[in-house]
């Protein structure tokens, strides 16, 4: 029992200490303070493909998707991106992996487990990132390690 209380105390303490270093939309303002929030960022809708940061990254959506209906009745994304529509729409076809079930069998239509597009694919806004990012592309990492080995 004593141990449990101690554990809780440590957790609480570390949570308060750590939370002071976490970047939030409230800019670390105290609870009783009002913060002027940033205006809502604009969606990027330039229709330009953006390269992926790693090969398996779900590509982002470069257009407006306001009110696009994805539910039991209909998936409006597939009105352009499904296999049979891309001739007319010149949209990118949904990846072939999306026509596979989890055992790798190919289906005639988009697999139910891949049906909800916005679960992985999202549009972007022009908001400045809240925190810095030290992500390095794998190609650059390979170049660095190659230089080190030589």
């Amino acid at each position, binding site marked *: 029992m004593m141990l449990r209380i101690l554990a809780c105390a440590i957790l609480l303490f570390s949570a308060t200490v750590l939370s002071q270093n976490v970047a939030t939309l409230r800019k670390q303002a105290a609870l009783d303070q009002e913060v002027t929030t940033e205006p809502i960022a604009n969606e990027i809708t330039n*229709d330009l493909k953006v390269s992926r940061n790693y090969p398996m990254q779900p590509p982002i959506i470069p257009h407006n998707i306001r009110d696009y209906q994805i539910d039991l009745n209909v998936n409006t994304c597939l009105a352009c991106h499904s296999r049979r529509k891309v001739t007319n729409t010149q949209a990118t076809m949904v990846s072939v992996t999306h026509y596979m079930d989890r055992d790798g069998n190919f289906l005639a239509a988009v697999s139910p487990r891949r049906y909800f597009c916005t679960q992985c694919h999202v549009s972007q806004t022009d908001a400045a990132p809240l925190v810095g990012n030290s992500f390095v592309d794998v190609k650059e990492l390979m170049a660095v390690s190659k230089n080190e080995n030589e």
Partner: protein
Amino acid sequence: MKDYLARIWRAIRKPSTHYSLGFLTLGGFIAGVIFWGGFNTALEVTNTEEFCISCHEMENNVYEELKSTIHYTNRSGVRATCPDCHVPHKWTDKIARKMQASKEVYGKIFGSINTREKFLEKRLELAQHEWARLKANDSLECRNCHDFAYMDFTVQGKRAARFHSTFVASGERTCIDCHKGIAHNLPDMAGVEGWN
């Protein structure tokens, strides 16, 4: 009954004995103005959003869905209300639509969509009526605001410009062919042409 009708017919045919010609023509004219004005005023009352959503079938289903869409809430403050899209603006077309709407009065009285479940069940059929209507009149209600002749393709998105400058320009397609479900949720589209 036959005698009664014959008596009315004789009364109408008989020249007036008490009222002057001036009173009858002027009175008829004024009564006509009042009737015509009253008729049009009543017609316009049925042509308001307020009137449409006075029925819960409209307020709780389609109106609720409209609220989050661009035709209701947007940056420029232009709002399309129910009659803007669902009632033609030209008088003769409007009267024709209003006569069709007597079916909707029937539906209201007999409660054909008076629950959410009934509405969802009937939704595809109702939507298909609207799509057929807009297809037949070349999306007239869309074009009341979105005039093709005034469209500037250079400020449209690339995708939009490509489709508008080809399919719509050639008359091969009309607005509703692509822009289904822009103001309300879509029903199950399996089997609808172009959606399967």
